[in-house]
């Protein structure tokens, strides 16, 4: 009753953590949660797709200015001069550890697909994936997405992924991951944490009722030059 506010530290718990100075290196970018679309525009200019298509080289700061998913690809398949190949993808709920979805690229003609109730995938041309999840997926808080990829004969410096998720013309979330250096001829695995943005009930309803209007662009850079561009779209009405 003395008027002091209840102390947040009354229950022992973690303080809000800011990264210590000098540790803003590659690993700190893997969290992705600081790449919120709302705050992405410190020194970023708004860009249109046609502006970027006219550029000689597309750089990370260019795609960070995009306000909607692109209609076309911003690079050609042959721009992947490092022969980076994605071989496995897995999603798990970090709250429970449950694997929600996993798919591995068939090594030969044999399919190695594990179809969970939550997802079905249709692939085409290797640069586009279509996902179908149940509505429950949008209620998840923290998800770990594991990507496995191989690198060709040349080492990759500063391999970086920027992934942007949109519903219609609205940016939901921006993820920015710096893998750093990639050893040539080697397979690597990366799991990054996706913390779901807070979605209003209305938005959830819209996303469920409008399958495949949630879309994402994944841009991959080596030494700040765009080398790969993958796309995906998502439905959340699975099982209905």
């Amino acid at each position, binding site marked *: 009753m003395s008027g002091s506010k209840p102390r947040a*530290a009354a229950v*022992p*718990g*973690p*303080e*809000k*953590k800011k990264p*210590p100075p000098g*540790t*803003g*290196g*590659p*690993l*700190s970018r*893997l*969290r992705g*949660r600081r790449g919120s679309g709302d705050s992405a525009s410190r020194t970023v200019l708004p860009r249109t797709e046609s502006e970027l298509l006219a550029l000689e080289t597309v750089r990370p700061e260019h795609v960070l200015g995009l306000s909607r998913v692109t209609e076309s690809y911003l690079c050609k398949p042959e721009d992947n001069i490092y022969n980076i190949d994605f071989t496995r993808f897995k999603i798990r709920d*970090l*709250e429970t*550890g449950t694997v929600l979805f996993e798919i591995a690229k068939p090594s030969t003609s044999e399919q190695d697909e594990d179809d969970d109730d939550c997802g079905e995938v249709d692939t085409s041309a290797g640069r586009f994936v279509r996902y179908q999840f149940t509505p429950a997926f949008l209620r998840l*808080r*923290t998800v*770990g997405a594991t990507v496995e990829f191989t*690198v060709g004969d040349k080492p990759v410096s500063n391999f970086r992924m920027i992934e942007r998720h949109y519903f219609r013309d609205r940016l939901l979330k921006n993820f920015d991951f710096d*893998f*750093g*250096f*990639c*050893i040539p001829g*080697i*397979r*690597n*695995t*990366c*799991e*990054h*944490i996706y*913390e779901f943005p*807070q979605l209003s*009930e209305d938005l959830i309803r819209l996303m469920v009722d409008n399958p495949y209007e949630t879309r994402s662009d994944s841009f991959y850079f080596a030494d700040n030059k765009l080398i790969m561009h993958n796309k995906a779209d998502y439905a959340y009405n699975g099982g209905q």
Partner: protein
Amino acid sequence: MDYKIIPKKCFRALCCKGPPPPRPEYDLVCIGLTGSGKTSLLSQLCSENTENIVSTTGFSIKAVPFQNAILNVKELGGAANIRKYWSRYYQGSQGVIFVLDSASSEDELETARNELHSALQHPQLCTLPFLILANHQDKPAARSVQEVLPSSTWIYRWRLWPVSYTHLDVYKRQMERAFSVAAPRLWNFLQWRLD
């Protein structure tokens, strides 16, 4: 008056069912010779199936969730041709987990000790705390932790834990406790006695 018809939205607000506060995160690098058990131990922390584990070749970045913390661990392959690249991944780390096979040959153990020594002195790691796991304690040929790392040789800023696959629950509890206390700075845990 009819308490049953409180709309869901209001009920949730009243019960303060907002999102839980974000957990603090620690960026760690996990190194050690190939076969020391790095992937298995990290997978165990995530309660993942360890049956089909293959040798890590390049890097394997994993998010290890604890109740009150998340570890972002960059595990690096330990084969000889990969070790020369380890230092490319040190920048940005806040701590190191080094895994040793307590039951390896003396030559291999000496190689592991040398790699550990190099890592302890590397400019980008020399101020960071090291958690050293003397793994495979359950094997008949396993050396004691004192034999694995004679303590007089090493400096203060590390902790050495024995780990065996027959007592993984102990290891998991220790890890959870080490990273789940109020102090957010990783190196503070070195001041606590881990009995």
